[in-house]
């Protein structure tokens, strides 16, 4: 080895990891960033450190997108989610590499994770036009009425994404919220936010309308409380909230009776079931008389 420092023949061009709000990629309005390292402590990137204002901007973007997204046909939403899987399949190598550096997984493990990520989008894509058939009902009320109940999306869902599973965990908490028509503000894993940011770049070039999924990176303890107390957020997923913080966030969420999903030990490789889809659904019952 040479003892003189040498520059590589070609220098790699690094990516700037930004926030994803309303379909655009802004830096944090605060101008702040924080160092993200790989599992060995090596430098990976300076990620944007979202502020209160970024969080509020993301909620505004999500609310704006909610109307159109929730009014899209279920068939259309299913196709949009499936398109995300298609695009991810073409970027397997990139995401395997990102998950490896973020989580320190072996090549085979990382490949399995990314495959599960792709298949999870497919799983949820299939639910778009079926959830009403599983969750809805014609109710045989005792009278001359036609009475039926259908599920409807809750609205804007704030998600504190899992800290440990930077991509599979992230997708596993975001996809079940958006498939039924909700719009999401997701706070990525604080320590390993980069795969989620790269995912947002896939979302931006897929058919997911801007604002339906917004991705923030930064300090969980700083940003999550602003989402938990935001009066235009309808539901809160605390999966990635540290134990000490979760109670506090849940209390703040009670102010406007957000639907709160509390942290639980999750094995993201297991079949996800319907729990997360159902958490962000309202049930609407319609009565109509029957008669000549």
């Amino acid at each position, binding site marked *: 080895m040479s003892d003189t420092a040498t520059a590589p023949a070609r220098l790699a061009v690094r990516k700037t990891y930004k926030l994803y709000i309303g379909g655009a990629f802004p830096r944090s309005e605060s101008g702040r960033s924080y160092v993200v390292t790989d599992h060995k402590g090596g430098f990976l990137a300076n990620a944007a450190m979202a502020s209160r204002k970024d969080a509020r901007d993301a909620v505004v973007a999500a609310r704006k997108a909610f109307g159109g997204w929730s009014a899209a046909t279920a*068939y259309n939403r*299913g196709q949009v989610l499936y398109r995300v899987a298609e695009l991810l399949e073409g970027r397997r190598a990139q995401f395997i590499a990102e998950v490896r550096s973020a989580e320190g997984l072996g090549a085979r493990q990382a490949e399995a994770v990314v495959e599960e990520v792709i298949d999870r989008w497919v799983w949820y894509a*299939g639910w778009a036009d079926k959830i009403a058939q599983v969750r809805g009902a014609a109710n045989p009320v005792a009278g001359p009425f036609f009475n039926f109940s259908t599920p409807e999306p809750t609205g804007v869902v704030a998600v504190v994404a899992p800290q440990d599973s930077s991509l599979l965990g992230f997708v596993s908490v975001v996809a079940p919220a958006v498939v039924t028509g909700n719009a999401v503000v997701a706070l990525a894993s604080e320590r390993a936010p980069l795969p989620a940011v790269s995912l947002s770049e896939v979302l931006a070039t897929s058919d997911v309308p801007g604002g339906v999924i917004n991705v923030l990176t930064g300090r969980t303890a700083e940003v999550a409380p602003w989402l938990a107390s935001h009066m235009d957020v309808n539901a809160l997923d605390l999966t990635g909230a540290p134990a000490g913080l979760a109670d506090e966030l849940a209390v703040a969420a009670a102010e406007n009776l957000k639907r709160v999903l509390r942290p639980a030990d999750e094995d993201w490789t297991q079949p996800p079931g319907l729990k997360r889809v159902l958490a962000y659904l309202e049930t609407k019952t319609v009565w109509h*008389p029957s008669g000549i």
Partner: protein
Amino acid sequence: MPRFDYAPAPESRAIAHIKESYGLFINGEFTPSQDGGAFKTISPASEEVLAEVAEASPADVDRAVVAARTAYERTWSVLAPKERGKYLFRIARIIQERSRELAVLESLDNGKPIRESRDVDIPLVAAHFFYHAGWADKLEYAGYGPAPRPLGVAGQVIPWNFPLLMLAWKIAPALACGNTVVLKPAETTPLTALAFAEICQQADLPPGVVNIVTGAGETGRALVTHPGIDKVAFTGSTEVGKEIARDCATQPHKKLTLELGGKAANIVFEDAPVDQAVEGIVNGIFFNQGHVCCAGSRLLVQESVYEQVLASLQRRLATLRLGDPLDKNTDVGAINSAAQLAKIRELSEIGEAEGAQRWSPPCELPVKGFWFPPTVFTGVSQAHRIAREEIFGPVLSVLTFRTPAEAVEKANNTPYGLSAGVWTDKGSRILWMASRLRAGVVWANTFNKFDPTSPFGGYKESGYGREGGRHGLEAYLDV
């Protein structure tokens, strides 16, 4: 009223790559029939021969059933459900990618207007595969128990009126539930089914999961009576449906679903918005030249608005454009076959002979091909054969009623029970009528609407079983 004439706007047929001859699709490959039998498929709009197609003998059908059985046991039933679903998603996407080609092919072989094959048939085909793809790994949520099992090999026979769409209605749920299939398309419209076989190849679908055997009635009989199948699904005439039911009656291991004929009532109340209702009446009976089992072939109009509705209907029919199916402005295409045309003519002549008044708008019919003008019969009584028998053509019988109860009585006065239409501005009346109509589908202030999520099928002699929706899965599960 002045009328703006349209310049011809033909869709290019170059996009449909028709081969000179087609084999049977068995075990993932095209193979000739064992005895060399073949038949020609023509364009009903021009009588031009489009291709020669192998005719499957009973021995060929047997080969196909064996291939399907092997694929069922070795591949398809042991494949992880989500992987099964991903094959169906692939097929759905390829259908979307090749949609224009399939639409042109369908219009050429069937005679239906390109506007319908392009905007209705093929999009629904893709949607049907997309919808069922999602069910493949979600069957435990469908309400049939925690681990519903497939049946095995399905023998499926489909009609010529919506060739590729009926294929989708049969194959998509069968595969999603874990079955393998042998499907026989109608002898007058085999081409899109054979294009679908190519799509299965493009999707890398394992050999034998889908087998397509072309042929006529004998081939169909060999398939549905084959002892090696576990499921029979048939869409077609009530007459053949009953024959199949008799045959299956002595082979109780076969699950049977039938989607048969209809004589739907389209009921217009005096408070209905007339223009909207007239559009619905036209769509109800002249869509696809009336080659629709759920067509609204009996128009029941409340007496008080009879004159108004009839005048408006006749005015609207005068604007329908009949002609080249590949012209994008065509509303009414060709009758699918000489045999069907003869049947429509015969029943129409009987209608006149029995005393009903026949009317058609001024309408020039092309010289070559099989054509029948949009036709309306008034002064029809319930006893007339044109009010009782399925004509399966662009022929509407108009009757009247005074009260809702009378409308229900007349609508239900048929051995069929596939569909019905209700036109009124009063929501409670829609629901009151819907609860009394003995039909599997009731359209209110619309007609001929289809969606993969929506179960379709008949009461009474229109058959049994449902296709589409959560309910449609039952036909392909061991429940």
